[in-house]
């Protein structure tokens, strides 16, 4: 495969950011099909339209997903990308790797594919970009037999779950996000590999409300760590922040690039607290924890002085999705607090998952995300099928319209009324 002229792409080798064009050119020295990736992309830049054909159904025996088929619509011009399938490889929770494992994966991918990757796809998978149909089964064989690794999910199924790095290196994580992410991934292998749902379904696990894996925006089932008791305060460390002591930079030094003046706790913490539940009493920091919504702001500003409480767990929110079909949604609060319990293999969380799946698999329409099913039936119906008592915490504000449905048994006399009886008192 020959080099192609790529004047438009060459522009993207300028500037300080790592250039994907430079990387692809380097890869093309050993994998000549990469010239055709560049060539077809250059053509797309020129034509301002994609040159991949619609769809593509390829895979490995036993699984209904994991590989995204792609074919060039200009294969004669760019034979190196005639087939250009994408393989999703399940990633370790928190994306920690050894170089040994990465080298083994890359050796495998150099052998069977283009050597080009996406580290990682938005859902979390390690993505191998570009191979031919006949390579899929041998690649899968080696991946499973030699490396003990598996494919990720694609299609109308449970997609590859992902988490923030949690307790591995964050003092705010309220549960072991990696452990539950890994456990549920193993527990639901069938649901990941064999599409059985009305549409896709995603899990994401964040250790706290900072939500570093964006669970609330990008998963149908979002688990976000929180605590029930008081924020832990180290008053001596609070004083160190107030004094501007060395080793106590505000926000861990996140704003040190600009001159924001000395730390002003009133302005930077108390006035910004969304519920205004903090104050100083003498030189003691006070928090009215009953009014605290656990937004993380004060903890983010003074990480050495403030910590999440000791009674930890998580909130479960559901229904986030991108705009198609009926508008973008964040997940909505369903369970304010749930124990995340390793000892019983996360039984409480699994119960909730099973309940929402049992219901959604039955009533969800074809290609209807669970968030849309929730919208269609309404929150009250959804909560009742989930066997959850409605709480004020379930809404941001009560409804403003009066179109309230009542169940017949809630209304004395029921719905069966005789108009003649009514006419006896109110002549027409």
């Amino acid at each position, binding site marked *: 495969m020959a080099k192609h002229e790529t004047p438009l792409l060459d522009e993207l080798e300028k500037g300080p950011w790592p250039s994907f064009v430079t990387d692809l050119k380097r890869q093309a020295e050993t994998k000549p099909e990469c010239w055709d990736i560049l060539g077809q992309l250059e053509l797309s830049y020129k034509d301002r339209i994609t040159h991949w054909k*619609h769809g593509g*159904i390829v895979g490995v025996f*036993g699984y209904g997903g994991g590989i995204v088929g792609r074919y060039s619509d200009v294969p004669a011009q760019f034979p190196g990308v005639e087939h250009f399938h994408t393989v999703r490889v399940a990633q370790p929770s928190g994306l920690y790797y050894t170089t040994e494992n990465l080298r083994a994966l890359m050796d495998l991918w150099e052998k069977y594919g283009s050597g080009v990757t996406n580290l990682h796809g938005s859902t979390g998978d390690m993505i191998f970009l570009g191979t031919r149909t006949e390579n899929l089964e041998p690649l899968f064989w080696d991946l499973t037999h030699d490396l003990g690794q598996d494919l990720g999910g694609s299609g109308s199924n449970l997609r590859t779950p992902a988490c923030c790095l949690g307790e591995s290196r964050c003092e705010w994580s309220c549960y072991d996000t990696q452990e539950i992410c890994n456990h549920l991934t193993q527990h639901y292998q069938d649901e990941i590999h064999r599409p059985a749902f009305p549409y896709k379904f995603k899990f994401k696990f964040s250790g706290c409300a900072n939500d570093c894996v964006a669970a609330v925006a990008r998963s149908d089932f979002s688990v976000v760590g929180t605590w029930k008791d008081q924020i832990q305060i180290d008053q001596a460390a609070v004083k160190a922040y107030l004094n501007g002591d060395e080793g106590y930079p505000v926000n861990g030094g996140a704003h040190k690039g600009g001159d924001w003046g000395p730390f002003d706790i009133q302005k930077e913490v108390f006035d910004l607290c969304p519920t205004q539940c903090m104050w100083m009493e003498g030189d003691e920091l006070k928090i009215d924890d009953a009014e605290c919504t656990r937004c993380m702001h004060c903890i983010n500003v003074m990480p050495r002085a403030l910590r999440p409480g000791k009674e930890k767990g998580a909130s479960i929110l559901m229904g986030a999705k991108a705009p198609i079909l009926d508008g973008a949604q964040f997940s909505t609060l369903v369970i304010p607090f749930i124990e995340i319990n390793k000892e019983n293999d996360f039984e409480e969380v699994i119960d909730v998952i099973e309940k929402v799946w049992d219901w959604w698999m039955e009533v969800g329409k074809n290609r209807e995300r669970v968030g849309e099913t929730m919208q269609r039936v309404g929150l009250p119906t959804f909560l009742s099928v989930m066997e959850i008592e409605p709480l004020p915490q379930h809404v941001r504000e009560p409804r403003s319209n009066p179109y309230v449905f009542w169940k017949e048994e809630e209304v004395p006399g029921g719905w069966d009324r005789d108009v003649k009886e009514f006419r006896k008192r109110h002549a027409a």
Partner: protein
Amino acid sequence: MAQIEHNGTTYEVDEDGFLLKGADDWDENWIDYVKGVEGIPEITDEHQKVIDALQEYYKKNGIAPMVRILSKTTGFPLKRIYELFPSGPGKGACKMAGLPKPTGCV
């Protein structure tokens, strides 16, 4: 577009081996061909039941059934469908039944 010849009959297919003209070109010989490429040793009554269910649903509704509906109408749990069709209901059974290629975010 590619052509496939099997036992003297020629079929027009796309890159993934799905029949381009669907039911117009579909015949028993097509089942025999797909059997070979989809890792199925022998076509049993159970295979036929899945194929019939897919074709009937498609004729009536113009789309392939959801997996849950296929399981309900055939009485086969998803696990059994994968035992019958190793590539699954989409790539395996729909291809063999001559239904159009599944689309969307797969």
